[in-house]
């Protein structure tokens, strides 16, 4: 018991003294997850909007597929990205394996379906309501896309926050494709896994506190955005 409370005190000390090791890990985690979310938004918003607005053969299958991808296990994504990026894999020449780039790619694959699926849902619902009015004002589905994304902005922000939550909390994918190399690819979740297995609880606890804070922050932001949207716009 004293072990744990000692570790907790040390953890707090690491946090308030901005321990360089801890800061480096947190910084890399944020860099990787934010980059992955940015990529996911770049791909997921247009894909989601296109799935919502256009009819094409195989569309329903793609919608089901994208929805299913939302629940993809991170370790499976890690494994697939590993196979793609490994020396013998199709993308092996880029030498990305065990770099932050590989981790960004893996997390982007985890987050993109969330952004795409939720974008599709909210844009499709809006389009049911808006399409006749938009057409009457002279806008077809393509020219209406910016307006639809703008009017769906609150829901989209919550989707993006959910994506960031998934990216920053997952451990399986970054562990496999990043390798948890000190000073190179060590992020919060992989560091926690390692430190706990080594029996060094202080750093693990410190990072755990940061992760919980981020998670709380995401939920608070989501709640605030929803409240505001419901109060003002719907």
């Amino acid at each position, binding site marked *: 018991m004293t072990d744990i409370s000692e570790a907790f005190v040390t953890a707090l000390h690491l946090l308030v003294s901005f321990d360089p090791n801890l800061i480096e890990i947190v910084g890399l985690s944020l860099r990787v997850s934010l980059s992955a979310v940015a990529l996911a938004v770049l791909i997921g918003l247009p894909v989601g909007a296109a799935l919502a607005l256009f009819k094409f053969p195989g569309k329903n299958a793609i919608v089901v597929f994208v929805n299913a991808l939302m629940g993809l296990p991170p370790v499976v994504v890690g494994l697939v990205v590993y196979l793609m990026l490994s020396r013998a894999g199709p993308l092996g020449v880029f030498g990305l394996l065990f770099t932050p780039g590989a981790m960004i790619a893996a997390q982007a694959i985890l987050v993109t379906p969330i952004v795409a699926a939720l974008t599709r849902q909210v844009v499709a619902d809006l389009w049911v309501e808006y399409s006749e009015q938009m057409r*009457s004002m*002279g806008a077809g589905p393509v020219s209406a896309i910016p307006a639809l994304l703008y009017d769906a902005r609150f829901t989209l922000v919550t989707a993006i926050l959910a994506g960031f939550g998934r990216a920053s909390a997952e451990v399986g994918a970054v562990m496999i494709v990043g390798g948890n190399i000190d000073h190179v690819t060590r992020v919060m979740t992989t560091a926690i896994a390692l430190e706990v297995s080594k029996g060094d609880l202080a750093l693990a606890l410190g990072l755990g506190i940061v992760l919980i804070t981020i998670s709380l922050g995401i939920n608070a932001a989501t709640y605030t955005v929803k409240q505001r949207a419901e109060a003002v716009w719907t």
Partner: protein
Amino acid sequence: MNDATPRATTADASMSRTARASIMPLRVEDVSFDAGGKRLVDHVSFELAAGPRTFILGPNGAGKSLTLRLCHGLLTPSTGRVVWEGASPNEDPLKRQAMVFQRPVLLRRTVAQNIDYALKLHNVPPADRPGVVDDVLNRTGLARFAKSPARHLSGGEQQKLALARAWATKPEVLFLDEPTASLDPAATHAVENIIDTMHGEGTRIVMTTHDLAQAKRHADEVIFIYAGRVLEKTPADEFFSSPRSGEAAAFLEGELRW
């Protein structure tokens, strides 16, 4: 009536109006519309000339809203065609019309932004838009709501906003689907005044209503639709004094069964 024109685009709009021929007349040729395996609009033909206010009357489910949508170009006819005689072949005639729906559809933005967006779609330059927005809001009595979320307005105010948004784009033809259906007498009067003003400015009015007193006050001609067919198209005073079809007579008596 020139002073009733939204300010900032007066010059360009009147210029474009004189530069282009009117898109009228509208010819509806043998138009049918099928959905769900049923013929809902059944071989309808009529012609609307520039000028008068046309009221489309008929019982619930007769096909009035569908007919408006077919004319406006929101629905594609299953048979026949809708021809705007004055439109040039390479333009979308829909851009020169507007429609106010039975249930107003407002964007999740402020009142002013709703109008601004319609102006943007009509290629009004950004610098000219605020003037038009202010003007149209003043004329419709909505100025104090300019910065409110549009969907916070009451039903009547939302209907006025839908009308203001249509007005701002200076349509040559305005279709209105029961624009006063859920309004109190004062709001009904206000909406009727706006429609009259637009008519005075040269906008061709085509609307439906279940308010026969309103139709008597404002209609110049009546198209009576029953079970998806046009039973008559008559000058309004004639329609109300001596309708040609038995169905129209029964409708006016309030005895028509659907």
